[in-house]
């Protein structure tokens, strides 16, 4: 089946099978930031934005994205660069494998709620699993970014 998606602002057409998942299509289209972790809808590593909402690309059929807008980290570098340094400063990344999913979901969080509390950050990012850290580093990093923004240091 032929589908067309608006991937990171550009129209892309691809031939997919009925059971091709969005994750596989995005990797084939060169989006290496999108990684597969659990493949059971549990870890959040494969997070992309579908029509601006964060979803698990391992669990969406590619055909269901036909005619829709898909954003991956490749297309959101500027938005991500505003806060990823703060997360790195906290040493929160360690192995870094979970990071693209965390960053994508943090972008979604900050678009939906530009001034979240720490509890709201934890709640929103609960679907992103990290096996190195205790999540405190990521929370501290996002908090440091929000504080810097409030204090006009950005």
């Amino acid at each position, binding site marked *: 089946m032929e589908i067309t998606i608006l991937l990171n602002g550009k129209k892309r057409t691809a031939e997919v099978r009925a*059971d091709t998942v969005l994750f596989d299509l995005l990797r084939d289209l060169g989006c290496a930031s999108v990684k597969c972790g659990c493949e059971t*809808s549990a870890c959040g590593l494969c997070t992309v934005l579908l029509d601006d909402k964060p979803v*698990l690309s*391992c*669990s969406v*059929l590619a055909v269901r994205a036909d005619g829709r807008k898909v954003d991956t980290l490749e297309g959101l570098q500027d938005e991500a660069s505003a806060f990823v340094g703060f997360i790195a400063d906290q040493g929160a990344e360690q192995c870094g494998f979970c990071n693209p999913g965390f960053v994508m*979901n943090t972008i*979604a969080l900050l678009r939906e709620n530009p001034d979240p509390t720490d509890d709201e950050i934890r*709640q929103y990012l609960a*679907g992103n699993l990290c096996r190195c850290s205790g999540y405190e580093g990521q929370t501290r990093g996002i908090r440091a970014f929000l504080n810097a923004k409030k204090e006009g240091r950005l």
Partner: protein
Amino acid sequence: MLTIDKYLRPSTLEEAYEAAQKKNSVVLGGMLWLRLANKRVSTAIDLSALGLEYVTEDEDFWHIGAYTTLRTLETHEALNNMTGNLFRDALKAIVGVQFRNLATAGGSVFGRFGFSDVVTALLALDASVVLYKTGALSLEDFCRMGKVNDILTEIRIPKTPVHTAYFAQRNTATDFPVLNVCAAEKKETITIVVGARPLGGTVYRFSAAETAENMAERIAGDAVFTGNTRASAEYRRHLCRVLVKRAVDEIMAEREGI
């Protein structure tokens, strides 16, 4: 591994229903559990072109389209205001926001999964479902039915303000619940649903004059609990006593404005 031979996005419910009668065809919901299945699907039927993603209200009911996502319910202000934030409380621990942006109300209900937080919450609200051919029936009756070869199009919730309390015990955050309990009070009746036993939600109704301890003892003594890798039957029974009492205490306190 899930293999799908053909994908169909019908433009009418009749077309979807006809396709669903064929062997090995599956109506897609959010596709999150189906994705884990090891099966071959002849036709995957996607209802996304049928306008089933909505939350509307009339004088008597809230109408929730089958393709409405759990995230929409969780963040729907008016629906949460009427139900004492039940949807926010019951759905927030289901995996993550990305999962709840895909999972649909219809898919969650149609599966009638024993672990379902969605079904437990909806049962406590006396919800009903609308099936394309069968028509409307109570969710309680729908949960007792065997295999259903119909298409769930809508969930209805009576538009009566309720005091609610929802508790679920999980071994780890975002995992399946070991037990979930929802209590709802309206018109001097307290409805209590205990699910994830690991069997699905069972509904109990009490007069609001009964004590929380009595309700907890009666349900813990009556409900069937079994053990699995997450918890033993005895642990679930113990949790049931604690969570039912806690839920009833909470709605009583809410009613009295404490």
